[in-house]
C-alpha cells in the first residue's frame, strides 16, 4: 500500500465505515484516473512543475482523449479492486478531437446505470473536466476524491477472489 500522503484529508464524517483490521484512518484507497493527454494530464504536469502536491493514492493513466476510455477499462479496474475510478478530460466543446468527450459522457452515463445495481456505489466513478491550465483545480479535485473515497471505505472487490 502507498505511504500516507502529505496532503491532508479532513473529511471524516460521522457516517464513516470502519474497515476490518484497523480504523478508518488506516485505509488508503487505490484510485485509478484516466486523464486525457491534452487537458487533464497537462494540468497534472503543471501541478508537478508548480510543486503542488496531491495524494499518492491516485494512479494516473494517460490516454489521448477521454473518448478512448473503453467502459471495459473501468469495469476491469473495479473488478481488480480499485476503490474509485476518475475519468478526466477537456471541457465539452474543447475536445482536441472535437467530440471524444461527448462520447465519454454518454459512456459514463451508461456505466453509472450498470455498475450501482452490481454494488459499485456511483460515487466511486467520477467524470470531471479539468483544462490544461487548471493544475490547482486538479490537485484539489484529487484530494477531494481521496477524502470522499476514504469515507466510502474499501471497495467490496478489494482483495477478494472475483469470479
Amino acid at each position, binding site marked *: 500500500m502507498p505511504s500516507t500522503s502529505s496532503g491532508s484529508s479532513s473529511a471524516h464524517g460521522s457516517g464513516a465505515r470502519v474497515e476490518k483490521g484497523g480504523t478508518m484512518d488506516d485505509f488508503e484507497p487505490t484510485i485509478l484516473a484516466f486523464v486525457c493527454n491534452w487537458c487533464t494530464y497537462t494540468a497534472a504536469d503543471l501541478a508537478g512543475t508548480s510543486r503542488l502536491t496531491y495524494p499518492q493514492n491516485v494512479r494516473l493513466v494517460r490516454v489521448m482523449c477521454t473518448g478512448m476510455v473503453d467502459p471495459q477499462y473501468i469495469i476491469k479496474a473495479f473488478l481488480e479492486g480499485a476503490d474509485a475510478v476518475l475519468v478526466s478530460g477537456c471541457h465539452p*466543446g474543447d475536445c482536441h478531437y472535437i467530440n471524444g468527450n461527448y462520447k465519454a459522457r454518454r459512456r459514463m452515463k451508461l456505466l453509472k446505470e450498470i455498475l450501482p445495481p452490481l454494488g459499485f456505489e456511483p460515487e466511486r466513478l467520477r467524470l470531471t473536466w479539468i483544462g490544461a491550465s487548471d493544475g490547482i483545480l486538479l490537485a484539489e479535485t484529487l484530494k477531494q476524491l481521496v477524502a*470522499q473515497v476514504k469515507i466510502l471505505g474499501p471497495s467490496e472487490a478489494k482483495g477478494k477472489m472475483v*469470479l
Partner: protein
Amino acid sequence: MIQTAKLDVRAGDSLSSLRELFKALLGVEGVEAILVPQTLPGSSMVMPVLVKDPAALENADPLAPAFPLNGAGILSKLTRKPLGGKVAAVLRPCEIRAFVELVKLRQGALDEVVLVGIDCLGAFQNRDYFRFVKDVAAGTTALFCRTVLSSGRMPLPGVQIADACKACEFPVPTGADILVGLYGVDTDDHLLVQSRSARGMVVMDALGLPEIEEPPLRAEAVARVVAQRTAFRDRMFEETAGSIHGMEKLAAYLSRCVNCYNCKVACPVCYCRECVFATDVFDHEPFQYLRWAARKGRIKMPTDTLFYHITRLAHMSTACVGCGQCSNACPNEVPVMELFRTVSHRAQKAFGYEPGRDVEEKPPLTEFQADEFHEVEGMTGVGK
C-alpha cells in the same frame, strides 16, 4: 393506417387457416419465400424454415409454444446484403424488436422483408417444450393455445412458459407489417389480420380478406395480459436486484457459469462480429494466472466470468429486448435473463430508449449532444 380483416377458421383448426394465409403470401407483392417456424420431419422440434414451395408449408407451426432461438439472427443472415427479392418472416414480437435493433446496426435490412407478427402467448424453454410434447403426444399446439387463451393457465401441470415470457410487456407485435391477432378474438371462428404499416397495407390489399372492425374486447384483453406481465416483471426486478447487489452476491449468482458463451451466441442483439472475449485479449499467458493467484490468494478458473457478463451488459443492455434466449441457452440454468433485464431496464430508462420501438430511433451510444447528462459530471451528486 391500420386495416383490420379476418381469417376464417374452419373446424377450430387455426393452424390450417394460417397455413393458407402463408400460401397466399407467397407470390404477393414479390414475396418469393417465407421464413416460418415448422416442425421438422421425424421430430417434434420446431425450427425456422425458409420455404419457397407452397406445398412445403404443411408443417408450418408458428403457434407452437416452442422458441429454440431468436429469429432476428436468422433474418439478419437473409438481409445483411441485398436479397434480390422479398421474404416474408413469421416472428414473435421480441424477434421483430430484436431485428429492428440489428437493422439500426446495419446487420439487417427491412426493405426486402414483410414482417408477419403473431400475438405471442409465450413459449416454453427448450427442456420444457420437449417434455410437453412428449407427455401430451398429439395436438400440443392447439391444446396450448386453447388453454392459454381461455383461462390464462398452462395445459400441463408443472410446465410453465419461460419467465422471460411471463415478464414480457409486448405480447402484440405492433412493429410488424402484418399482424395476426389472437387476444380478444374468437379464435375458434376466425383470427384477426391487421396491416400495421404502408407495406402491410399493400399486402393486405393483395390478400383480399374480408374487412371487419377490431373486436371491442381485444384492447381490454391485451391490457389485462400486459398488466399481469408487468406485475410479474416488477416482482422479478425486485428479487433480482437483491440477488446481484455486491460482489459476493453477484459471484454467487453467476457461480455456475462456465464461460461457454452460449448466452452470447443465443442473444440476438449481441452485435459484435468478433467478441473480444473470443480474441487473444483473453488468451492469457500462463505466468499471468500464477501472478493473479498470488495477488488474491486464489483465482477461479476460467477467469473473467464476471468481467464477461458486465461487459456484455455495457455493450448490449440498451438493446436488450428480454427474449430470454440467454437463459434458454445456458446449460447450467444461470438466471442470465433476469440479470440482464433488471440492469437493462435501468439503462434504457436513463436514456429514454426502448429497443425495437422505432427503426429511426438511434441507439443511445451512437449519438450525443453538446449539452446533456450534466448529472454525471463533477465531484458531487450520484449521476441521477
